[in-house]
């Protein structure tokens, strides 16, 4: 009985679940990358995905995934799906969206925020959610941090790196800074994202236009 249960349930693992369990820790919840490479680009440095997942990549941190060949095949398909371009029609006007981008987004996303080229591949729903609830899911490497140093000055930005002695920050002007903790009196991590919510500031039509523009930023 035990073995029968085992056999059935092994098949019940869905590909998304396999990805979450095996890959997301390094490659990000949506394949956006982090400790491991971005999987949403559709370009795979080591060639065949099945072989890469099955055997790992020697000389790197990428291990061989412990799963059946069937599961590895499903994982490979799922990883490919992360790079799939969302081709569903959007109603917005890209030129209007471009103007909105320049007015609301570019200043940060071209200095301290993530590069938005290719972001629309993840779908209109994801972009909409990111605009309305930017703190819901933070891409690895973009967690907000605010420190107050001994002379009372506050430095806000994203945390690039940290240890017990120092913290590295890209400030809101895009400058990388390294600060010794001995000179810091307070570290505030309570705000997950630097990006403000645009709920109530952009209406549906404007968001559609932004999405249409971002579609063009391949």
């Amino acid at each position, binding site marked *: 009985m035990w073995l029968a249960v*085992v056999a059935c349930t*092994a098949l019940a693992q869905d590909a998304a679940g396999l990805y979450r*369990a095996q890959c*997301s820790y390094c490659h990000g919840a949506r394949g956006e990358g982090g400790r491991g490479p971005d999987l949403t680009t559709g370009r795979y440095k080591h060639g065949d995905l099945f072989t890469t997942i099955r055997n790992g990549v020697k000389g790197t941190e990428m291990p061989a995934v412990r*799963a*059946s060949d069937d599961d590895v095949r499903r994982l490979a398909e799922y990883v490919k799906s992360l790079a799939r371009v969302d081709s569903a029609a959007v109603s917005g006007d890209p030129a209007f969206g471009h103007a909105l981008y320049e007015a609301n987004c570019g200043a940060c996303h071209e200095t301290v925020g993530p590069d938005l080229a290719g972001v629309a591949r993840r779908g209109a729903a994801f972009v909409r959610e990111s605009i309305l609830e930017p703190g819901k899911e933070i891409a*690895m490497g973009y*967690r907000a941090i605010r420190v107050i140093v001994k002379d009372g000055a506050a430095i806000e930005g994203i945390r690039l790196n940290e240890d*017990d002695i120092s913290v590295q920050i890209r400030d809101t002007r895009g400058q990388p800074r390294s600060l010794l903790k001995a000179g810091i009196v307070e570290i505030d*991590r309570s705000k997950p994202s630097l990006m403000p919510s645009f709920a109530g500031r952009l209406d549906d039509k404007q968001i559609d236009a932004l999405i249409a523009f971002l579609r063009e930023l391949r």
Partner: protein
Amino acid sequence: MIRIALLIALTAPAQVPYVRLLKPEAGDWLMYSGNYSGWRYSALDLLTSANVRGLKVKWMYQARTQEKFETTPLVADGIMYLTRPENEVFALDAETGRTLWTYVHRNPERTFNCCGKVNRGLAILDNRLFMNTLDMHLIALDARSGRELWKVKMHDHEAAGGYASPGAPLALHGKVVVGMAGGERGVSGFLDGYDAATGKRLWRFNTIPQPGEANFGTWAGDSWKTGGASTWNSGAYDPELNLVYWGTSNPWPDYNGDFRKGDNLYSCSVIALNADTGKLAWYYQFTPHDLHDWDATQIPVLVDGLYQGKQRKLMAWPNRNGFYYLLDRATGEFLFAKNFVRQTWVKSFDAKGRPEVIPGNEPTPDGNTSVFPGVDGAANWMSHSYSPSTKLLYTFAREERRVFTKDEPRHPTTAPDAAVGRPFRRRPRFAPEESWGKVMAIDPLTGDTKWEHKVLSPPWSGVMATAGGLVFGGTLEGVVFALDARSGERLWHFMGNDRVYSSPISFLSNGKQLMSLPVGDVLITFGLD
């Protein structure tokens, strides 16, 4: 001339006879934990709170490996012996780090290690070095040349879900005690004793009682056949009692107890075995019917002290399950347990040390995020340290939030195309501030915390106390540190900038005290000018 050379070779003194292991000289580091009591303590006092700020890199050994570098080197008479992943042995000049000889054991392409193709170190006895391997061999080398003296297979490494042996062996009087791994792969655990001269197996203790043995029947149905309970770290030894102490791993499947109802002896336990026969003297199970992978594979720390008015032989044990335990190591009597990190699973302990478990802490199919400590535990395999000068126990504890997911078990097999291996662990990222590490100084006789030194991330480094009043260790970010052993104040640090997955050692070279610790894939040795 050949005859003379042969004569010299035959009459050359054994390098590290057993008497040296019984009372290691302060300038050497002769076994994984430094001494049989598992103290990881250096009796050297040349590095002190007054001069440690002058500590500098003296030399580096570049291991050039992508695997985690978890070795603890040995140092005997000016020569350092260490392992590099997977199973390579290097002898270095301890003064310069220059290589004297190397030995390579090649494992098959597929090995069945849990968490990297790692090895944690060697044992030495007389002129022999001992290394166990990922494909389940035990090898003896000539310490002077690296020449292989014998090699024995401990077990079929492809049996069940796969066996491996990554921990450091323990050399005793004429024998070597060796453990094995595979608790997440449905193996059947054991601890072995081998003749140090020949490699002949002298005894095997099954960590899951077999039919006809005492305590058989604590596993439902046939689950005992694949119950795990491995012995993947190293142990301790009391020469007066002639008892070997060793911790055991989780029962299998790790996070699903449905098929293995019962206490699942001797998983998540400490076993005390007669060193000559391998017979069980006593056991204590820290976590009956474990569901959280809370291995009890920490190094036992043996201390003597006055407990409730009576001088006793004791065993101090900060456990992966979040509790610090004090046991009588002669009898196995439970004396007390006290949590040293946040814990959510125990309401109380009865007089025999059995925990009353709080419901709601079990892994769930969707993932239980409210259990503390986390899956990697409050302590893991990294060494604790005990200082006889401060009479404090030092541990590098993990405060961590993680997810416990109940996965369906899979039949253990090493077939290449089968769904094998550990159940999938979901490892979502929690905010950094939800997890951290802390070096703690604990009074071993009371469990009271004397001080804590907090660090950014849950660690994978052990600690080492010294007679100079220091505690050394390293963080996951690569900050190598020295703390004041009495206050926890950080006195010195070095930015190693890569993960530390090992525990420090200290030794003498040319009359100066050095300290070594692997950082990333580099073994860094520090000293004063």
